[in-house]
């Protein structure tokens, strides 16, 4: 290392978009590093999109391949929709992180490695036969070897800390270096350090020093000849914050409870990747939110039904395996026609599957996965920010139609972050519904609103409305137990019609791109960004294509069939093996082409473009 007090002449290169991936041991603080970079870029005014990718093991053996944790952030001067197909910069804190991530780095991309970690022991743990830093295997990248551990330890000299504690701060050295390289201010992170470690001055000082040392290293080393500038994005005017999908979900339901004028109840059992919603709602005590950690998934669902029966805006949240356990009780909610929302933050299955990885393969489970004819509305947010508005929409539908609603998030949209324009409360809809009140004559718990087919919500505590409901089939109107054959058919049809009728009360399916033409790319959920970006590329190449993205999976928007009919082919990319494609084919008799990949990862834009071009016959 050469140090000099003379300023070094460097080029400044302006870029529209940069994608960085931080990768290291799951104990190396890569998620924190990525989050800090994200906040800084967001506050600066870039558009951002992130993809945290972490192992299920809390602390896999240090240096091992399964223990690698990654955080990818794309930040840009323009509107972006995905965290980027391939990183331009990879920060690898050890050989295992290099090995599992370098394959994704763009050719010519920058590779910053902590050279201190490339010991024989660590190379063996990562199953490297020879040291990749010296064997020429990284020739296609710009490799920057930085002895991060040593430099960081030197910067922290004199602090009363163990060498292990010192080593834990090296992620902030790497962060400081990246801040310098991309002309970012350290201030947001410095104030975060003050807030987080204020009570522990030594730790705070260590993190400050590590961050500043990384930044100073960039300034003084001659290793980097260029710094990069990514100007602010031109976002719509307003107040912004950075938000993840799970945060937006929790916040959306909090706001929904106020818009509905009802207390919020959340019954849940801890499960990845939904637990953050439980944590967030548990902290909203000042709002009167009652978050209940149940003894199991079934109890969480049962308690949610009980709270809905009592008049609360009731929710439960889980992932696919949890929904499997709740299934019988969801059927009870369908039968008793009580309003509630079931949040499924999907993850890779079946069974325990890959609990921290991305997949959207619970669509069939949501739409069809109950015994009997058991219809319920299913909604899916497309972006982290949209999790907010769709939480309100799911609540609106549940309350207005007296029905359980499934809200299908997934690990990608839940953990990913983007800048979010904070809405004004005045712009949000009133979603309140009245409680049933005693009228003349016998109370009919299954009388229906002629427009919505919703039954009355008669809350315990209301004199004169004493009635009994339950899982047994009920006589139309009167609500007594009924085994009458025609009544069962009529009630089954009524429940189905009620849910189908919601199609008239939701926005039409919109298209982006050509109004008609060769190909429609139809998706749902968190694939939105990749499909949108792919469509942009295909349009730029002159193809007659469009994108349509479903937020409502049951019922489909009323114009869906008409939209499908305007394109010669329909491509349905999904992170499952063709579930929406199957539903589209079955519902509309359209020869939809499925593109399904389940790798535990979101789609890359490039693969969607390739598949679309294959169908379009380009380059064949």
């Amino acid at each position, binding site marked *: 290392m050469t140090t000099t007090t003379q300023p070094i002449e460097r080029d400044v290169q302006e870029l529209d978009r940069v994608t960085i991936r931080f990768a290291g041991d799951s104990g190396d603080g890569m998620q924190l590093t990525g989050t800090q970079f994200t906040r800084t870029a967001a506050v600066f005014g870039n558009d951002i999109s992130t993809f945290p990718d972490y192992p299920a093991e809390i602390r896999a053996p240090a240096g091992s391949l399964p223990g690698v944790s990654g955080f990818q952030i794309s930040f840009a001067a323009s509107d972006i929709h995905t965290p980027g197909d391939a990183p331009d910069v990879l920060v690898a804190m050890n050989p295992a992180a290099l090995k599992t991530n370098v394959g994704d780095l763009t050719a010519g991309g920058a590779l910053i490695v902590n050279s201190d970690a490339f010991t024989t022991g660590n190379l063996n743990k990562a199953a490297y036969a020879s040291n990749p830093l010296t064997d020429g295997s990284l020739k296609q990248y710009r490799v920057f070897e930085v002895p991060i551990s040593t430099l960081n330890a030197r910067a922290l000299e004199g602090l009363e800390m163990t060498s292990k504690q010192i080593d834990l701060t090296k992620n902030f050295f790497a962060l400081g270096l990246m801040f310098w390289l991309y002309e970012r201010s350290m201030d947001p992170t410095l104030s975060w350090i003050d807030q987080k470690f204020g009570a522990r001055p030594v730790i705070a000082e260590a993190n400050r020093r590590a961050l500043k040392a990384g930044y100073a290293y960039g300034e003084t080393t001659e290793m980097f000849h260029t710094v990069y500038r990514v100007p602010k994005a031109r976002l719509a005017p307003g107040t912004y*914050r950075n938000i993840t999908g799970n945060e937006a979900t929790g*916040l959306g339901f909090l706001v929904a409870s106020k818009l509905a004028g009802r207390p919020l109840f959340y019954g849940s059992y801890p499960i990845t990747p939904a637990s953050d919603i439980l944590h967030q709602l548990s902290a909203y005590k000042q709002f009167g939110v009652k978050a209940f950690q149940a003894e199991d998934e079934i*109890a969480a669902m*049962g308690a949610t039904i009980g709270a809905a029966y009592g008049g609360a805006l*009731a929710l439960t949240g889980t992932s696919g395996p949890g929904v499997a356990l709740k299934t019988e009780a969801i059927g009870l909610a369908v039968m008793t026609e009580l309003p509630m929302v079931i949040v499924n933050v999907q993850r890779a299955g079946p069974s325990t599957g890959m609990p921290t990885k991305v997949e959207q393969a619970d669509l069939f489970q949501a739409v069809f996965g109950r015994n009997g004819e058991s219809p319920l509305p299913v909604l899916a947010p497309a972006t982290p920010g949209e999790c907010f508005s769709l939480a309100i929409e799911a609540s609106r539908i549940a309350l207005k139609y007296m029905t359980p609603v499934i809200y299908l998030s997934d690990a990608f949209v839940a953990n990913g972050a983007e800048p979010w324009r904070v809405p004004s409360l005045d712009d949000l809809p009133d979603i309140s519904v009245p409680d049933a009140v005693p009228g003349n004559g016998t109370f009919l718990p299954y009388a229906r609103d002629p427009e919505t087919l919703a039954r009355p919500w008669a809350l315990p505590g*209301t004199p004169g409305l004493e*009635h009994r409901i339950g899982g047994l089939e009920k006589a139309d109107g009167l609500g007594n137990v009924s085994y009458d054959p025609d009544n069962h058919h009529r009630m089954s049809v009524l429940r189905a019609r009620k849910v189908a009728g919601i199609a008239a009360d939701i926005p039409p399916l919109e298209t982006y791109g050509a109004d008609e033409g060769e190909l429609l790319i139809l998706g749902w959920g968190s694939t939105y960004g990749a499909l949108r970006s792919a469509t942009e590329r295909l349009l730029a190449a002159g193809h007659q294509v469009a994108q349509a993205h479903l937020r409502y999976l049951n019922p489909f928007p009323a114009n869906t069939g008409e939209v499908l009919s305007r394109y010669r082919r329909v491509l349905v990319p999904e992170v499952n093996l063709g579930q929406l494609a199957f539903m589209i084919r079955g519902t509309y008799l359209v020869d939809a082409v499925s593109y399904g990949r389940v790798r535990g990862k979101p789609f890359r834009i490039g693969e969607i473009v390739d598949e679309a071009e294959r169908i379009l016959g380009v380059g064949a």
Partner: protein
Amino acid sequence: MTQMTDPAETQPVALTRKDFVSDQEVRWCPGCGDYSILAQTQKVMPDFGVPRENIVFISGIGCSGRLPYYMNTYGFHSIHGRAPTLATGLKVARPDLMVWVITGDGDALSIGGNHFLHTMRRNVDFTMVMHNNRIYGLTKGQTSPTSEFGKRTKSTPLGSVDRPVMPLTLALAAEATFVARTVDTHTEHLQHTLEAAGRHHGASFVEVLQNCNIFNDGAWREFTERDVRDDRMLLLEDGRPMIFGKERDKGIRLRGLHPEVVTIGQDGVTEDDLLVHDAHAEDPYLALILSRMFWPEYPVPVGVLRDVERPTHSDLVDAQIEQAIEKSGPGDLATALLAGETWTVE
């Protein structure tokens, strides 16, 4: 939302048993013990002074599950084993309501065992009445968690290889604050026990020994029949020595960790040597000993084994909310929306 009211604050209402009888035709087998449990439940209801609309009966699946249909209150016939979970959510959302959970030995202890355990330890403020007939009746006669070891049923033609659980021991182990046992045919005792359970603030568990005259006739006959019950059952009375027998000459004495049956007047045994019942003891040891006593080794204890006060689940939930508001004021949505760092785009 309906205005929430504390049951204690509502004006006492003068109701009669008939006010709690719904218009539904009761459909249990003739001779079923459930008729008696229903009748005593309806009879005891007016004594609480709670308006009908503030009472909710929640049941699971099994013969007992039908009871809410026959009560002219709010009612919810849920799914197998899950009634305690609905009751928990309802009580959290609506602490103002009086909630009863009606269940059976299969519903509460087999498929719903986990919820039984956790609602008891949370001290959810409801009264759970478990109809225990030691058999699955609605599914036509299979072994239940309280069936005797070796019991021959349709699913155990060579005899059950599972040992039965002791429901009262389970409830005590799960930290239940009110634990009692009674018998379907001992109507007066049944009524008093239901009343005491209903008045308890917190989770109350009542095991009702009930006959299934179709699939397990005489389930408890050996010690509940009129001619033998005084000698084979121990009527627990708080603060009184444990005496039983037609001649009131038998009692329970503690030897080491074990209870033993003694005869007053024999071998110098006097009333002073007998165990004195203390349902309000903070520790559960005496109640645990009683919960393990069963015929034929011992007379079967009936009555209230344990009745202690602890804050209920919904009390604690509400207190946390009140404290949070007291400390930092009511939540402000605009602040929550703008949490973290924000920036403005012009």
